[in-house]
């Protein structure tokens, strides 16, 4: 029987807590907790917990989908995609921040127009 290491337990525990919290928040119908968000979180963290507890799953995916020795390349591509997404989100936030400032400024300047009249 294969032994389970501490890091596997910790990872599975953290993933379990996150899925648990998300489930509670979803069923409490908390603001901004959509079904899509809930399922995404559950699938991602559930997979992490599953792979942590049963590393054989990763091997099974490799064999089934025929990645063979190119599994590292797949991980690399995943990182690239994550970085692209990260910078895309950063630029969206930046744009929204600018728009908020513009609205706030317009509102503030209304006062000066009133005072000028």
């Amino acid at each position, binding site marked *: 029987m294969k032994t389970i290491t501490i890091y596997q337990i910790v990872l599975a525990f953290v993933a379990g807590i996150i899925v648990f919290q998300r489930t509670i928040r979803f069923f409490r119908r908390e603001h901004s907790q959509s079904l899509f968000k809930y399922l995404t979180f559950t699938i991602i963290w559930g997979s992490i917990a599953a792979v942590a507890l049963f590393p054989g799953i990763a091997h099974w995916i490799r064999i089934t989908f025929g990645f063979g020795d190119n599994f590292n390349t797949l991980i690399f591509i995943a990182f690239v995609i994550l970085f692209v997404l990260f910078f895309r989100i*950063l630029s969206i936030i930046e744009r929204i*921040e*600018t728009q*908020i*400032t513009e609205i*706030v*400024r317009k*509102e*503030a*300047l209304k*006062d*000066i*127009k009133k*005072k*000028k009249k």
Partner: protein
Amino acid sequence: MITTIIIPVFNEAQVISSVIHDLKQFGYKHIIVVDDGSFDRTSHQAKNENVYVLRHEINRGKGAAIKTGIEAAKQLYADVVVTFDGDGQHDPKDIRKLLEKVDEGYDVVLGSRYLTKQHIPLLRRLGNNFANVFTFLLYGIWVTDSQSGLRAYTKKAFDVIDTQNDRYEIESEMLREIKHHHLKYFEIPMHVRYTKYSTSKWNKQNAWNGIKTMFKLLLTS
């Protein structure tokens, strides 16, 4: 020549009245206070002093507040705008020195804490030196106090200067614009009053904010 003083403020109810009062004593009548979403009585106090008070309904940062102030100054036909901190650390006496240089033909005049001997906390001094070097490497313009908030801009300057960042990055961004538009600039020594109040405020530029500022400048340079 209409000189408009712009004071960006955030939660300065304790001192804003005396800051405005001091400025008025030195004869500056055109004052715009931009309250950047304070949740104390800053706006109320400033309004009592009979100056223009503009309010950002939510906090957008010093850069955003200065930009709002400049937009307002344009609408009020200002010839020169002077940015002045609202926490009482700037001395209204220094404004005259800025304006003298404007009269000599400079487009932008920058106050500098490091051109005269005075006590400045060591950490602040180190942080500022670092910011000077960083600004120089990024924009190729060397000044002795890249983070100074006391500055004068002529109409020629504030008409062309265009900043994008909302927070403390504005001080360095202004220098980028000076360089980009080939504006004539000069640094004058300024006196700064580090009171217990001005150094203890939590929203001031600290080490962590400094790192965030540098990161944003890198992203937008």
